[in-house]
């Protein structure tokens, strides 16, 4: 009796915990309830990433009566080897296992076919698949997910937790026969929706022009960023070459690299604005003050040469990108103040853009400067910056000297659409409005009379600066004679800038001057996006003649030109009125292989006609819808089979269209 009491005490006190845990383990079935990963939208609510439900099938082999018949039917539909499937099922059946995967994430048609077989013991489960309807569009911003739907790059990685949501848990009390008799648990909290500051149309234009420029200049790579200087919002961030996040596994790490904020380059002349703004702000100089430029200047240890000679005003010196003038201004400021302005413009610190892997760049503290550094730093040498940093610095000048932290997440909404987080970018004054205004005027002269005449726009005033830097050869640690980084950073319109655009081309072949390779890209982009952004032209349209051939280089698969639409609209309504341009979309791949161009004309102010999407791939359809601003409800995989609304019916941007895909023969 004492022994029984002792044993009871032992079991129910010191053994209680693990026995109870073990008992609960057999008494409970915990069924995770998957949360749907959140959407990623552009600033206008167009989908950049969405998770779609697809069917997977598993079998409970114990319930399959005729394994061979089941295997033959399934093998036919799923297009797998019948013998090995039958063997797998039989082996599981013999082992009395209740779960065998038959096929993961199949398309709608296969799913229907499997269901149609009506085999006892074959069950569907819904799983999720991440889709990027625009393919490579904004790939470096959006990022991609891995096999387990975990974000591995871009905002997919940065906001992985918010996008993932909270999986629910259904805790089911079961009896020994696995019958549930009581359940409790938490519903899944679907992932949050991420609304980016990216504008899909702007992004598309930037990517197209950047890609074209990289191809034309045979550059190794290129990066471009568009920032709204008033809000710090990044409207577009592109790298070329890009990659398709739908198939990120096969992409090299190099292609995935977001050069716009992960790579540092020596900026060269674009960096000269720091010395100029410091000198203006400290009243050391006025735009019209004369600077002697003798063609070279001695700094401790060496002589820096210059192509600009003579007595130049500060404005002229900047327009001609005089090295001597910039170094003289840097000397007037002195190391300490120069360094201070560099840091105030954000160089040497991360901008805080919501993307993984951003680098702070390379700005050495004054204590580590060489005596000759004053001959390098003011002209953008001995420093390393990222394209985003440079864009943010020019955005500060564009925004009357107030820096608004660049960012690309506009708001985070919960699954019900309620805004739970709104970006509140930090802002602070870097230079006075007066200094900024003077600088803008000086930078405009660069495009009018200086090194960046290729950056002039149609109908808009523009300001900016070219930069050409020799790359440092990693082997010799000396400036390379063949490898350059050509860049242009600028904004428009000059008095009330709506967009700051930076274009950086890495190792262009042949012409490598920023003014020659990057400035035209700036102008291509600005000419298209400013009308799209509803910016009033502030300049005579014929300011720049001859008119460039627009949409001259259609992309092989798809072209869309906002500018063409804008021009068409202008012809109707007079040149002074700008309208929001709906992009025209041309899809040029047809199953027959013949290249044809289909243009979908505007049917009204914001309405257009529903194109015939049948026979097109998911990606093509997604692109068309993205360009037209149509919300795509896609189901299945393969080529478009059915579409609602019908061909030719009037649709509006924002309207949702339902496309079913299949792999019919």
């Amino acid at each position, binding site marked *: *009796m004492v*022994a*029984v*009491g002792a*044993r*009871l*005490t032992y*079991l*129910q*006190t010191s*053994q*209680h915990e*693990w*026995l*109870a845990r*073990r*008992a*609960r383990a*057999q*008494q409970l079935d915990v069924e995770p309830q998957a949360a749907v990963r959140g959407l990623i939208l552009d600033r206008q609510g167009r989908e950049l990433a969405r998770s779609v439900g697809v069917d997977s099938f598993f079998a409970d082999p114990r319930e399959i009566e005729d394994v061979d018949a089941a295997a033959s039917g399934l093998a036919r539909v799923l297009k797998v080897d019948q013998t090995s499937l039958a063997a797998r099922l039989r082996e599981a059946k013999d082992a009395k296992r209740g779960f065998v995967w038959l096929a993961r994430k199949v398309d709608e048609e296969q799913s229907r076919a499997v269901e149609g077989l009506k085999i006892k013991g074959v069950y569907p489960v819904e799983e999720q698949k991440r889709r990027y309807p625009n393919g490579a569009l904004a790939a470096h911003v959006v990022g991609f997910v891995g096999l387990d739907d975990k974000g591995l790059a871009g905002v997919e990685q940065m906001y992985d937790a918010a996008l993932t949501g909270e999986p629910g848990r259904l805790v089911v*009390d*079961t*009896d*020994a*026969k696995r019958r549930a*008799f009581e359940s409790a648990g938490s519903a899944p909290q679907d992932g949050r929706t991420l609304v980016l500051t990216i504008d899909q149309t702007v992004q598309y234009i930037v990517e197209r022009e950047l890609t074209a420029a990289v191809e034309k200049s045979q550059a190794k790579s290129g990066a471009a960023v568009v920032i709204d200087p008033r809000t710090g919002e990044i409207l577009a961030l592109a790298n070329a070459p890009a990659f398709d996040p739908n198939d990120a596994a096969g992409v090299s790490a190099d292609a995935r690299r977001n050069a716009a904020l992960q790579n540092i380059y020596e900026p060269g002349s674009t960096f000269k604005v720091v010395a100029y703004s410091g000198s203006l702000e400290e009243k050391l100089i006025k735009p019209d003050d004369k600077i002697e430029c003798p063609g070279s200047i001695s700094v401790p240890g060496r002589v820096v040469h210059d192509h600009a000679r003579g007595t130049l005003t500060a404005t002229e010196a900047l327009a001609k990108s005089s090295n001597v003038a910039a170094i003289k201004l840097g000397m007037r400021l002195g190391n300490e103040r120069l360094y201070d302005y560099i840091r105030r413009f954000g160089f040497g610190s991360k901008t805080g853009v919501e993307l993984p892997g951003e680098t702070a760049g390379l700005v050495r503290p004054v204590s580590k400067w060489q005596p000759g550094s004053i001959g390098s730093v003011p002209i953008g040498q001995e420093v390393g910056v990222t394209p985003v940093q440079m864009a943010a610095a020019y955005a500060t000048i564009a925004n009357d000297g107030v820096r608004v932290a660049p960012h690309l997440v506009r708001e985070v909404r919960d699954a019900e659409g309620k805004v739970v987080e709104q970006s509140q970018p930090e802002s602070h004054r870097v230079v006075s409005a007066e200094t900024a205004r003077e600088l803008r005027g000086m930078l405009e002269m660069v495009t009018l009379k200086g090194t960046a005449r290729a950056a002039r726009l149609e109908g808009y005033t523009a300001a900016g600066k070219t930069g050409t830097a020799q790359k440092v050869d990693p082997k010799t640690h000396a400036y390379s004679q063949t490898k350059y980084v050509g860049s242009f950073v600028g904004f428009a319109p000059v008095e009330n800038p709506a967009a700051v655009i930076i274009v950086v081309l890495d190792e262009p072949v042949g012409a490598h001057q920023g003014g020659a390779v990057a400035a035209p890209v700036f102008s291509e982009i600005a000419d298209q996006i400013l009308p799209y952004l509803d910016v009033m032209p502030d300049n005579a349209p014929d300011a720049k003649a001859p008119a460039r051939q627009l949409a001259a280089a259609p992309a092989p698969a798809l072209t869309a030109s906002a500018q063409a639409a804008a021009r068409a609209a202008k012809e109707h309504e007079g040149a002074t009125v700008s309208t929001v341009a709906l992009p025209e979309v041309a899809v040029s791949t047809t199953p027959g292989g013949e290249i044809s161009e289909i243009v979908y004309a505007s049917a009204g102010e914001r309405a257009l006609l529903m194109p015939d999407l049948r026979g097109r791939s998911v990606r093509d359809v997604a692109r068309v819808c993205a360009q037209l601003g149509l919300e795509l409800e896609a189901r299945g995989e393969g080529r478009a089979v059915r579409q609602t609304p019908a061909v030719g019916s009037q649709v509006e941007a924002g309207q949702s269209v339902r496309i079913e895909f299949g792999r019919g023969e």
Partner: protein
Amino acid sequence: MARKLQADEWLFGATVALALFGVIMVYSASAIVAAGENHTQYFYVARQGLWTLIGLAAMLAGMRFDYGRLRSPAIAYGLLALSVVLLVGVFAFSPVNGARRWIRFAGFSMQPSEIAKLSLAIFLARFLERRAGREADFWRTFVPSVAVTGLLALLVVAEPDLGTALMLAVVCTVVLFTAGAQLRHMALAAAPALMGLAGLLIFVPFRMRRMTAFLDPWADPQGTSYQVVQSLLAVGSGGVHGLGFTEGRQKMFFLPFAHSDFIFAVVGEELGLFGALAVVALFGLFLWRGMRAALRAPDRFGTLLGMGIVTGIVAQALFNMSVVLAMLPTKGIPLPFISYGGSSLVPTLFAVGVVLNISQHASASHGSALAPVFEGGSPAAPARRAAATQPRPSGVSTMRSLLRGEARG
């Protein structure tokens, strides 16, 4: 004497408490099983309630006649013969769970082995009373006692029901010891019994499996140790406070025989350490008051019969609990008073009635609780004087002093 006979209130109280507690626990443990068998959830508890009423009536009946009449040859040998016949009779019925333990008629079933336990106690008490003073006679006292026990035990083992057979052996041993049998004789009998036990374990495969399962239950929790493991999980989950009455989870078909052989596991799971220890304590109270009554019986027959019944019941209870707590290999024997089943409950309660019967004579003849029992004899039962004045069984004095110490402690 005109004085109203007074039964032992503590013994009575402990018995009724255990029986009523059993009804409640049978409800909790069986409701799900009953529903699973397409009965109402009250199916088993209603039957158990009915059996408890019948059993309590049998207990009262057991108190209301002169227990001395049980020593008449007609009753003693008649019951013994009936037991043998019924134990043979079970083989006419199809097995349940692989064993032929039940005799069924008119919708009811009974276990002859339960009757055999009482019959054996009555027979041994009568036989050893008559052999008073000749306890040391190996051939004429010891051998017949062991032979009758062995016969019944063998029949029970054949059912097979090794657990009940062991209980019969325990009853025989306790009664012989109380009567003052030679310890060396008992050792002599124990040797072949143990060898037989070993043989049964070795040559009947399922017993061996159960044996090893008990030694290391976690080695094969889904196979041979399934019952032990589920029982331990139930008891362990209970913890100190238990999950609460009816809140147990293990009875959801995890724990086999939750309302019968493993009901103590449900007690441990739902009522925790406090509840389980309370049950143990009630059996302790039952043992103390039962032995006290037996040792105070006015005659040798009453003492031996009371001892046989009380120790038989308590030994079975401890055996059952030990199985539940994996201290002994699994044997299918019910927890007296508490486990579901009328065929165990009714004979047990009747037997307790007999002990209460004996207790009322003890209290009637001795005002003082600690007065000597065997001196003077009982005024209420003058017929038994001859027996009572016979030399006192040697084991009794030892036990009496033990009991006294326990009572004082």
